[in-house]
Every structure is written in C-alpha cells, then in structure tokens.
C-alpha cells in the first residue's frame, strides 16, 4: 500500500539559497515520523512545501495518492492535512474557545456542532480552564497547546507538528507525548513532527528523517540514526568524532 504522505524529490530555493534539495521520504498511514536536523536544515521549509505555503520548484507531493503540490494551504487542509506553526499564530483577539471553533467549522455543518466539537478538543489539550480567555494572553506553552488544538479540530488525517514541545517543561512534554500516542493509537492519526526535544522524538517516532543543508542525510529508527556518523557530525562537528 502506498504511504499516506509521499514526498518525492522536492526542492525549494530562496534567491540562491538551496533551502530544500531533492528531499524524498514517505509517511505511512498510522505512523509517527520525526523530522530532525540542526537549525537551518530546511525542516520548516519542508513543512511549508507540504502544507502549501510554498510551491516546490521540483518534485511531487502526494496525500493519499492525490498530488497536492501547487495547491493552496486551505485546499490542502480540506484534503486532510492539519499543521501547527513553529512561530505560533494564535487569533490573539479571539478567545481560546473561538480559536478552536474556527478549526472545528471545517468539518461541522453548524456553528453549534463546531462549538461542541471544539469543547472536546479544548478539554483534550487541557485548556478548559482558559477557554474564555483571549488567546493573546496565554503563556507560550499554552499557545503551543492551542496551535495543536486548532489543528486537531479540523480532524486531519495527518498532523504536521512544528516544534510543539519547545519551551514545555518535561512533565508537560510527557503529557503532550501521551496525547499524541493516544490519538495515534485510538484514531489512527498519522503524525509528521519536527522536534528538537529528543525525549519526545524517542518516545513517539519509530522512524526518523534527518535533514542537513536541505538534504536528507539519514533515515531510520531513532536509535540507529542517532549513532550514524553523518548525523553526529552535523550536530556535533567533525572534531567530536
């Protein structure tokens, strides 16, 4: 069976800077795949190509067999892809609840139904005590949670998480990990995550893709990949080896 998300040879330049070069990897249905690499490796650009913010200059992206490269972000969302932003973009003037309702409306026939759905998602993320607070007044960890809640409310088949663990305390990280494990096990939610917090990557992904200078330098089980000399070199430098 083909993978849910297939990325084949995509590239993107920013005025000469090769941000993503000929990147290929697959995310099978029901999997949790980690995308790691040092700062500036092209991870977020890769996400933005998949989510439709940029159009790849080469290559193909398929979601459930359908080509989605060149589609607009809203079309890709409606095709079943939810994403969070690394630099969180809450609807600051709206309440937490209203933020999530906007996401929930994608799959609801009425505002009333969307509110009910949003209430469940808000609870899942542990934001119920803040549900009537303006999103602009939340702390960073709560904003990260809100990003996840909003994306989850669109009921995606695949969720793209861009560093949602960054800035969380270890106990909060474990809680978030537990939530994704549960969603993955119970609903079969497929997840592609960019993450620097290795504690989370190790706990969640069985498959990791490593990017460096816009290229895939390693892929495999997290345990193997972190012993790969090429990966160690890009993180720690040649001398460390």
């Amino acid at each position, binding site marked *: 069976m083909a993978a849910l998300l297939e990325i084949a040879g995509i590239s993107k330049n920013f005025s000469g800077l090769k941000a993503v070069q000929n990147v290929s990897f697959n995310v099978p249905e029901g999997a949790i795949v980690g995308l790691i690499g040092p700062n500036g490796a092209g991870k977020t650009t890769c996400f933005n190509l998949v*989510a439709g*913010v940029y159009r790849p200059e080469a290559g193909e992206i398929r979601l459930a067999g359908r080509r989605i490269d060149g589609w*607009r*972000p*809203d079309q890709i*969302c*409606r095709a079943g892809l*939810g*994403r969070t*932003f690394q630099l969180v*973009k*809450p*609807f*600051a*003037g*709206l*309440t937490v*609840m*209203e933020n999530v*309702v*906007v*996401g929930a*409306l*994608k799959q609801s026939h009425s*505002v009333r139904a*969307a*509110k009910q759905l*949003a*209430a469940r998602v*808000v*609870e899942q993320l542990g934001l*119920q005590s803040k*549900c*009537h607070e303006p999103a602009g007044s939340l702390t960073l960890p709560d904003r990260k949670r809100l990003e996840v809640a*909003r*994306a989850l409310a*669109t009921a995606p088949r695949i969720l793209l998480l861009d560093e949602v663990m960054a800035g969380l305390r270890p106990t909060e990280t474990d809680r978030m990990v537990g939530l994704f494990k549960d969603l993955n096990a119970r609903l079969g939610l497929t997840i592609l995550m960019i993450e620097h917090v290795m504690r989370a990557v190790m706990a969640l992904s069985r498959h990791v893709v490593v990017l460096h200078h816009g290229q895939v330098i390693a892929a495999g089980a997290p345990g193997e990949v972190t012993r790969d000399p090429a990966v160690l070199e890009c993180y720690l430098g040649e001398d460390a080896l």
Partner: protein
Amino acid sequence: MTAPWLDGAPSREIILLSLLLAALILFPLLANDYLITVLILIFYFAYVGQAWNLMMGFAGQLSLGHALYVGLGAYAAAALYVHFGISPWLGLWVSVAVAAGTGGLIGFLAFRFGVAGVYFAILTIAFAEFARLAFDHWSWVGGSAGFFLPVANYAKNDLVNLRGSPTMFYYVLLAMTVGAFLVCHALLRSRAGYYWLAIRESPEAAQALGINLFRYRMYVVVLSAAMTSLGGVVFAFYYNNLFPEQVFHISRSIELILAPIIGGIGTLFGPIIGAFLLTALAEGLDEIMRTAGLDVPGVKQIFYGVCLLVVVMFLPDGVWPPLAKVLRLDGQRGQDQPGC
C-alpha cells in the same frame, strides 16, 4: 425571548436595548424638528458606520473609499426615480447590485493580485476618485452641476416614493440602523463571522485551517458595499440633491469611518455609540457657536480631529469596550454556556 438571532446574548443586554429602542420609537412625539434632523444624521452615520465596520472591524479589510458605495447607491436610485419614476423601493435593488458589483470588482482586483493592507486602502480611494470624476462628466445625472430630485410637499408622507417629512426619514433610518445591527449580530455568530475574525487576526493561520481567504474576503467586501449603498439611497431622497464633488469626495469616506473608530472598531455597538457622540457633540458645538455669535469656518473638522486624537490616545479600542465594562454588557460570545 429566544429569537434565534439572540441566541447567546445576555438578557440584561436585551432589556436595555428594548428600552432604548422604545425610547427612540417614541422620540418624534416629543422632540422638535431640529432634534429629529440631528437624530437622522446620527442614524445615518450609525448605519453606514456599521456597514464599514463589517469590512474593517470584522474582516480587517481597510476601506478608505466607502463614499463610493454611498454615491453609487444614491445616484442609481435617484436617477431611476427622476428619469423613469421608479420607486426607490425597486430602485434600491439596482443600487445594491451596482454597489455590490463595484465592490466585487475592487475585491477581485485586490485579492486576486495580492493587494493588501495600505495598498488595498489606496485602491479603494482610487475607485472613489474615478467615480467622482466620471459622475462630474456624466450629464445624464447632471454632471458637476448636480442632480436634483423634485422637492416633496411635506404635508403628506409618501413612503412608497420616499417623499415626506423628516419624521418619516427618522423611522426609515431607525429601522435600517436596527436592521444593520441585527444582521451584523447574526453574521458574527455564523460561520462567515468566525472566518472573518480569523482572517482579521491571522490570514496565514486562517488559511491553514481550511479557510478560502479569497472567497471570504470577497463576501465581506460585497456585503459591506451592498449595505452601504442603501445608506446612499436614503441620503439621496432625504437631501434631494447630489453633487459628485461632495458625495464621492474622500472627506465623505473619512467622515463615515469616524463613528466606528471613535465608538470601537469591531464591536457591534461602536458605530452606534460613535455616531451618537460625534454628531451630538458636533451639533452642540454648532449651537454654542451660533448663540455666541461666532462664525469659525472649519470648526467642525477641527472638533472631529480633536475627538479622534483624544480617542486614539486614551481609548485606543474606542469608547464602547470600556463603557461596556461599566454597564456590565461585555459578555463575550459563548460565555453564557457552562464549562467549555
């Protein structure tokens, strides 16, 4: 009282609103003609302010050329009435169609080609200026010499042709202001309302949640233009004269956004409160100047400027949000529901 459009509104709000509305309905029985004309101005600015607020306050699309839609609405209905004797109640549909079409054209050009923010605002000014120049040279509607409606005999109100006393216009504009409020209230609680607010707050995040930015921006521009044009229809039949230099002038566009800015952009009561404050204070100033025997040209404009300055400096969210807190009317959507 659980009409569907009131779903979720606190009852305190409903009681106060009902009392205010009752007072306004009875007002012409007690007031003199002068006060009625002041209230007419207030309703007019509250109505067109609400229409502008829909676009800027809800969806974050700044228009500085809304006089365009007032003018198109005014000229379309007036021309049909003068040239063909068509009742404004039929003519207004043409007004709405022309304004909505023009709004749609501006929206299409802007949103298709990524003209946003300040550049979008400049585009709206440009179209209002095009219209001003075009109507200046269009002799069928009087050109720069102006277009006049036959002045009515105030002895008898003719609601069908909108010919009559200020009291008739008072009730027509009151109904329109209430109607605009209810429409915006309902829209804010609809899918489109949520999407507009999301687009206002962050277009990128809104798009990532599946919202078609082009479509929902088009909706709001077309709707706002259509609503504004109805204000123009009444404007034409109330004043009975239209001059392109005045109707389409940028000062008119600025004038009609003052009420929502001072009252509170993005709030339902802002345009209404703002229109009351500005018009009542400006008329009061006029009265004082008259009794003092002073004649200072441009004093009203200076007054508007000072008001704007004071509000921007001390009440950046407008008068309504802090006032709502005092009146305990700042209940937000959904807060009446238990839990989440």
